[in-house]
């Protein structure tokens, strides 16, 4: 059976004949045509300037102003809206630089709870279409729509167009979509004409399209690796195609295989819907670098409380405690300890992390500290009472009592002394 050849209007979703560049129904010009439009089913959806878009949605005054999300004395830009981006503000740019480039920008402190809520709503809409949704972060995800034509009475492309319009209407933010035949190219495609983009890379054109792109387009090729490849005379994707897979593997190890496969438009990774969280963590970047162990300990306690609070809420306990430190010179140190029994108590996290922290606090100034728990299990098994350590059992009881006080009178109703400023 011959595949249909018509395209779709991105606004009214009506079919548009192959040779028309304007929708015959609504007369608007946003028309989507592609020879493989009715076949491709792997999509990547990315929200446009997500944090900024959410802020603009909630505060219409910001709509036409350059908005930067980020903050703090040594803050960096976490998201800049498209108006600010035109003026040269980029993600991860130090705030002072960003404000130099765009002095009239409105800086908004990030409100993660709000973004998490909006991100969750977007994800829920995606999951209505297919269970195969693989989130990459709060604002982007892969979707595998193979085999959903009959369910939605539409090819994946039209299903995605409907989703895009629904997100704009119901959630009030815009997204960009890439549609292709594997994950790598879908992600490349979604980046092609942001914001509000909908790009398609078909099997026919993929090799030509990718050939003249810089190698850095390949997932996993960062700054350092890019430099290494450049030294070897490889700057464009097609340069990689001169080599056999074995030659690339011999030179670059396991990354060589990825280079060969992706440069030849092969990507067999499947879309895996994520299971439950693998770890719970909290971290903080200090206002000023800290080297004093007592000061670090004081900063550690609220982090432990934050992790414990989330663990208790999710009714999940962790068996491995990991302490993360970043020195003033941006070197990361992680130290972890596995417990005999899983825990969801801040006190146990703290008591476990202290002996990990103490040897590290040798006078080195640290800019960041974090604490996390992993090897997650059900809360039922957490913190069994210990016959031989009645002190720990008492402290655990005290923490549970504090939690019930908080549940009744609010977060700040009761605090442990070690969390207070001197």
């Amino acid at each position, binding site marked *: 059976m011959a595949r249909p050849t018509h395209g779709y209007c991105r606004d009214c979703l009506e079919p548009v004949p192959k040779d028309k560049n304007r929708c015959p129904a609504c007369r608007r010009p946003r028309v989507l045509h592609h020879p493989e439009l009715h076949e491709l089913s792997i999509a990547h959806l990315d929200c446009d300037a997500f944090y900024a878009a959410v802020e603009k949605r909630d505060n219409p005054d910001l709509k036409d102003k350059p908005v930067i999300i980020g903050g703090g004395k040594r803050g960096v830009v976490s998201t800049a809206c498209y108006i600010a981006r035109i003026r040269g503000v980029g993600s991860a740019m130090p705030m002072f630089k960003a404000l130099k480039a765009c002095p009239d920008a409105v800086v908004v402190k990030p409100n993660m709870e709000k973004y998490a809520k909006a991100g969750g709503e977007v994800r829920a809409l995606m999951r209505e279409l297919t269970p195969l949704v693989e989130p990459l972060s709060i604002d982007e995800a892969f979707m595998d729509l193979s085999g959903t034509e009959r369910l939605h009475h539409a090819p994946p492309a039209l299903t995605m167009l409907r989703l895009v319009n629904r997100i704009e209407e119901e959630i009030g933010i815009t997204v960009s979509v890439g549609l292709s035949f594997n994950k790598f190219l879908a992600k490349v495609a979604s980046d092609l004409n942001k914001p509000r983009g909908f790009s398609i890379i078909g099997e026919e054109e993929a090799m030509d399209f990718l050939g003249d792109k810089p190698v850095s387009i390949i997932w996993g090729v960062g700054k350092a690796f890019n430099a290494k490849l450049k030294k070897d005379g490889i700057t464009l994707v097609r340069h990689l195609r001169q080599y056999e897979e074995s030659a690339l593997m011999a030179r670059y190890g396991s990354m060589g295989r990825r280079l060969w496969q992706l440069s030849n438009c092969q990507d067999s990774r499947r879309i895996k819907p994520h299971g439950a969280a693998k770890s719970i963590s909290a971290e903080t970047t200090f206002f000023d670098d800290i080297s004093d162990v007592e000061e670090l300990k004081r900063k550690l306690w609220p982090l432990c409380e934050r992790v414990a609070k989330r663990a208790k809420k999710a009714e999940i306990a962790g068996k491995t405690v990991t302490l993360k430190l970043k020195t003033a010179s941006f070197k990361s140190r992680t130290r972890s300890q596995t417990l005999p029994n899983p825990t969801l108590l801040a006190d146990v996290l703290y008591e476990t992390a202290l002996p990990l922290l103490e040897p590290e606090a040798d006078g080195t100034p640290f800019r960041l500290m974090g604490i996390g728990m992993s090897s997650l299990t059900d809360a039922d098994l957490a913190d069994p009472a210990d*016959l031989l350590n009645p002190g720990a059992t008492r402290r655990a009881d005290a923490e549970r009592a504090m939690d019930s006080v908080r549940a009744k009178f609010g977060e700040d109703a009761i605090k442990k002394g070690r969390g207070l400023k001197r």
Partner: protein
Amino acid sequence: MKITIERGALLKSLNHVQSVVERRNTIPILSNVLMRAGQGQLSLTATDLDIEVVEATTADIGQEGGTTASAHTLYDIVRKLPDGAQVEITDGEDGKLTLQAGRSRFALQALPQEDFPAMSAGDLPHRFEMPAEALGRLIDKTRFAISTEETRYYLNGIYLHMVEDGAPMLRAVATDGHRLAQADFPLPDGAAGMPGVIVPRKTVLELQKLVEEEEGIVRIGVSDTKIRFEFGGVVLTSKLIDGTFPDYTRVIPEGNDKDMEVDGKKFAEAVDRVSTISTERSRAVKLNMEEGRLILTVTNPDSGSATEELGVAYSSDALEIGFNARYLLDIAGQLDGDKAVFSLADSGSPTVIRDVDDESALYVLMPMRV
């Protein structure tokens, strides 16, 4: 060295010693078993540097001498030989050991016996004897409670010591902080004055296998750092855990005033049945006690729930308490008398469990929050 031995005898001895040998070894000779032939006997030795097992068995000695070869390979070969086969073992000049039985012939890489590490027990000043069965019982009753938690290494074994309040006893105690098991045996002659020692888990497991088959007497020698068990043709020498066992007596509650008497066997079966639906995710068994009856409940959000009612002797106020299903099963499995008694205080405090007719063993179990 040249010996001939019946397959069954060799297999039995190899089986006894080979389990001490670790599967992975960085020092090659520790994978080997030392074989020495002399005076009508073949003696096999295996060690992991913490435990040494020596077993002697009668063999036809053609030429005296000794050598070492891979314990697990030898065991696997002998296991596969036909029943009743005569096995001939010879060590060649070429550093190989030859094993022949019927039409099978194996040449194994050997290492010289001089390289095999010898474990010196040193002086064992405290020596006593007890029936193998009694030693087996001390182990059986307490083994399950041994901790595997490495940070509290001093709990990774059975604490063997003497107690003198009342009739002097040799007592074995094991605990992991969640449950505690204690078993007594009247203090044998010669054991008085022995130090309290922590016998490591692996030694306990090896010993348990060995004494199971033994019906006679076990001779035990103890020093501050080593313990030795001799019985049948076996000598097991082990290092002890160098640590202080916590004062477990503080953990055993004395004021628990709510007693529940139940048929130990029926209780064990009921716990086993209801815990069928408990999983990794939910392990708690809930015990509801009221006048004359006990209701066991397990609720698993994934698979459903189970209840079972038992007639018990209970006359205190109604009480609800939860226990880890696996821990409760471990203890229930030890209750072999007709009547077991649970002494409870409240739903948050440790419970004492024992056989009514058997004062020589008791268990303490910490409840779970339910």
